[in-house]
């Protein structure tokens, strides 16, 4: 009844919303209503998917469909969701809801809301795509709306910020495009047969009408007693046999097939040097721009400060997660051996992000810049977790994505509230707001605690898991230890900010006139805050989705590395 066509909802609904927002005349709340409705629809769809995933009890892709589009090149409309994607889609819808509720563009309302919807088409498409070409297309689709959103509705220096964002992202994407093209033509034109991990087959297989096994629409082969390949029977695999299994892979752009080719990529040589580390580096550059990881993070503080509040929320809440998602979906599965070899390097890159971001945040006097640098710092934990290539580390990175999405959105929304009241964002320009805006202060304190990683709130789980993963892998152990000290930094700057802004005496008497949170702001903040607490005390809720995916990826990495 529910098949993979439901996934198109995530793309069709925002497109419809964009068209509607454009053609309807600009009434005071018409466009906002459309945006909020679309986001609620997407929320409902993602919750439905989550329920489906839970009830299906499947470790792999819950829904998946593949329709060949340009078979000459092997390009197919291949979309699917597993636990990771569902979590990301839910976060995307939630962030869209919060951003739509507080959106207040000054002028050109129709264009603003259309562009936001188009942005989310790109975001959702990237989370759904399982074909490299469509992944790339949706990745790039986000460029133009984001450029305009910052360049038109942003702050004083918005144009430079928008250009920086555009060029950094596009440069990274070019690296991804080049790597993609080169990899595609490394597959022999007639296709090849690769060995496949039995555990993966057990998790992800589909059974045909006569009991034959398919993995990602490819027939699974095993050698019979004479050594000839025959299609393996599902019953045989399910019973846990350890016969070597193979799949025939054609030359195409399919991400899952490329993942199966990981042993092939690992051994490939071009011009005398190994392909896998270079390709991994290219993909890492492309995704590191988005994460954003040191040293490609320079666009973020600028973009965050200049973007309007709602767009900052979108940027920090979901756009940064695309980088981590790319690492988890594309880079690490394709080149596990190279990733393991470089674990130490990647871990230290993450650690530098954590520490650098933390120290930079300590020195900021602009609230938005402070939160921007704290974003860099928190996303460093994601990189650390992924670098460790263990199931705890990867699960931690994914969890941190969600929890940072919540905490960053909270913080940016709150900074937006304060800016709306005071028309400035100087940390020193506030004091004693707890006496003036109690609800605001409560949520501010909560958000700061989430960001600092207080146990019992969502931020703790992700960071702990990443650090644990870093410890488990001997190569990343030292880096993990240094990163752990970075937790102190985040607590430091967040608590200090809270003290300066919320507590103490009221330094500026005119601020006594500030109104507390209104309904719209409350509507945006409440679900985020509630979810942060919920995930803090019941991480299993999210872990149920992320755990199997991380375990599977870690297993895949270990298996390919073991083949060497």
């Amino acid at each position, binding site marked *: 009844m529910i098949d993979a066509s439901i996934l198109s909802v995530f793309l069709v609904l925002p497109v419809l919303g964009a068209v509607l927002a454009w053609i309807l005349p600009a009434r005071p709340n018409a466009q906002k209503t459309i945006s909020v409705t679309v986001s609620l629809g997407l929320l409902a769809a993602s919750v439905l998917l989550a329920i489906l995933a839970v009830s299906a009890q499947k470790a792999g892709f819950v829904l998946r469909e593949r329709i060949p*589009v*340009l078979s*000459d*090149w092997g390009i197919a409309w291949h979309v699917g969701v597993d636990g990771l994607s569902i979590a990301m889609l839910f976060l995307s819808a939630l962030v869209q809801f919060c951003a739509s509720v507080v959106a207040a563009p000054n002028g050109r309302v129709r264009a603003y809301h259309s562009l936001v919807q188009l942005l989310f088409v790109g975001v959702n498409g990237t989370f759904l795509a399982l074909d490299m070409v469509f992944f*790339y*297309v*949706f990745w*790039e*689709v986000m*460029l*133009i709306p984001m*450029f*305009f959103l910052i*360049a*038109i509705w942003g702050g004083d220096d918005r*144009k430079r910020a*928008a*250009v920086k964002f*555009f*060029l950094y992202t*596009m*440069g990274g994407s*070019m*690296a991804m*495009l*080049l790597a993609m*093209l*080169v990899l*595609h*033509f*490394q597959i022999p*034109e007639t296709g090849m047969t690769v060995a496949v991990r039995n555990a993966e087959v057990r998790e992800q297989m589909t059974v045909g009408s006569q009991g034959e096994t398919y993995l990602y629409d490819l027939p699974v082969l095993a050698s019979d007693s004479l050594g000839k390949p025959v299609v393996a029977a599902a019953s045989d695999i399910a019973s846990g046999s350890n016969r070597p299994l193979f799949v025939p892979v054609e030359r195409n752009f399919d991400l899952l097939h490329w993942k199966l080719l990981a042993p092939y990529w690992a051994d490939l040589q071009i*011009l005398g040097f190994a392909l896998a580390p270079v390709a991994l580096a290219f993909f890492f550059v492309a995704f590191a721009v988005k994460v954003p990881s040191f040293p490609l993070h320079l666009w973020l503080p600028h973009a965050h400060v200049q973007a309007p509040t709602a767009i900052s929320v979108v940027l920090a809440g979901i756009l940064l997660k695309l980088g981590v998602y790319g690492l988890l979906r594309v880079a690490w599965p394709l080149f596990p051996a190279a990733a393991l070899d470089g674990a130490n390097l990647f871990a230290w890159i993450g650690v530098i992000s954590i520490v650098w971001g933390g120290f930079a945040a300590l020195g900021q006097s602009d609230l938005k810049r402070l939160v921007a640098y704290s974003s860099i710092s928190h996303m460093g934990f994601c990189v650390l977790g992924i670098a460790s290539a263990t199931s705890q580390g990867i699960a931690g990175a994914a969890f941190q994505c969600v929890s940072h999405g919540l905490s960053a959105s909270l913080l940016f929304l709150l900074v937006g509230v304060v800016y709306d009241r005071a028309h400035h964002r100087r940390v020193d320009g506030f004091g004693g707001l707890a006496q003036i805006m109690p609800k605001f202060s409560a949520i501010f304190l909560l958000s700061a605690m989430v960001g600092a990683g207080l146990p019992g709130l969502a931020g703790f789980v992700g960071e702990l898991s990443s650090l644990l993963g870093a410890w488990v892998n001997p190569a990343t152990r030292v880096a993990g230890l240094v990163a752990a000290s970075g937790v102190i930094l985040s607590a430091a700057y967040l608590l200090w900010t809270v003290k300066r802004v919320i507590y103490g005496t009221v330094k500026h008497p005119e601020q006594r006139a500030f109104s507390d949170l209104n309904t719209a702001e409350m509507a945006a903040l409440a679900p985020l805050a509630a979810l942060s607490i919920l995930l803090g005390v019941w991480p299993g809720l999210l872990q149920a989705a992320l755990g199997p995916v991380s375990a599977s990826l870690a297993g895949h990495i270990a298996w390919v590395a073991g083949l060497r």
Partner: protein
Amino acid sequence: MNSVALTLLQWTPHELRFLLPEILLATSILLACVLDWTLDVRSKRMVVWFAAFSAVATLVLAVVAGGSIGQADPASMFSPDPLGQFVRIAALVGAVLVLLAFNGSRSIDGRAEQGENAILVLSVALGAMLLASANHLIALYLGLEFLSLSSYGLAGFRAHNAKASEAGLKYVLYGGVASAIALFGISHLWGMAGTFDVREIGVVLSSRGGVDALIPMFLLGSAFAYKLALVPFHFWSPDVYQGCPTASAGFLSTVPKIAGFAALLKTLMALLPWWGVVASPVAISTFLALFATVSILVGAVTAGVQKDAKRLLAFSSTTNAGIMLLAFSSWITRDAVAGVGLYLMAYLAANLGAFLALDILERSAGSTNLAALGGSWKRHPFAVVSLAVCVFSLAGIPPLAGFAGKWAVLTEVVRASMEDGLGLAPLAGVVAALFGSVALAAAYLKLLRATVVDDPAIADSATDDSWKPAHLSEIPLFLCVLASILLGLGWPLLSVFRSRIGG
């Protein structure tokens, strides 16, 4: 009616049967000349409309007669093949769009010369059609000259303005040298090979061997490089586009390039057997790839420092031409030809659209200087948005048409480099193309930023805030934008290209 057409067809000499669209267009040019002489100054607009109408009629005829293309005798002087048909349609579509855009164009509308301008547009289109279906070296030269002479006239059109007539003069002087060099090369090629037919030349030279025919080939190649504005023969295009009326610049930057690429493609493919004898595929591929890479990089980097929008677009045309030339370094496979075809379509829509948008913006801003374009966002939001879409398509951002074209070309070059053993140079060219795209995007963003700034820095007395473009002149711009978007989404069109324009 049918019997008349039948009789006419029977009387027409066999070769001319396939050139009916060109004949129709030539006749309408002559009729338009007569019309222009007889009409008084106030009704000159009728000539523009007549020209547009005849371009549409020729387009319909070309499409209808397209079914019989395969039967054309490949040995005759002008024989349209699918590639030629593609150029015909592109040239005529471009002509119609530009003629529509003349309404309201700052430097053309309302002037006494607009009739002649329209006639010249038709002449350029005719020259493009002739060039693309030429099989014979003299026919090639004829088409090239027809195209060039009409372009010179079109470029030098604002004769009352010193800066503008300088554009035309520079174009004709440098173009004349290029044509002369081409002719010198043609004369030697003919003397060495004994025939003017391009394919036979390839066969004769390949059996004869010998490297000495390379020199005239280079001479002919440099003339093509001039027409396509490839480095180091690209220096004329910024000055010419800056000087001539913007709508005409849009036409001149697209249609002659399309025809030039088609002719170059035909010539190179015909001479392929000879090349294989002269040098190894790797050497030739490396040469072409290096040549293309230089064009890409120089165009992209220089575009970023330009202070005038039209000069910026001129350098970006050089980069785009370089990327298309890169496709040739894949030893001109069928997929490469299809890729170039798709890229040319995307380029036509996007570049023409960008110039048409600038035309509208220029009317209020007074000039296309980046500093003068400020505030255009408030005056003409539609034109600025269209400019943005066209420019992003040129940069190759999905899901616009430019991405589809780039994808087709770059994929084929990577494949050829890896599988056909054509060496690393094409791959280096791909890297340069990607880098060039980012550099070009930076230049385009500079252009877009300028239009969003609030007040023009240069207060030109020609600024006209209250002017609104006629809806009719916005239609071609809208169509270009639509094409850019639809071509990008309707990517399966590429399969059509591959099956029809190939080999």
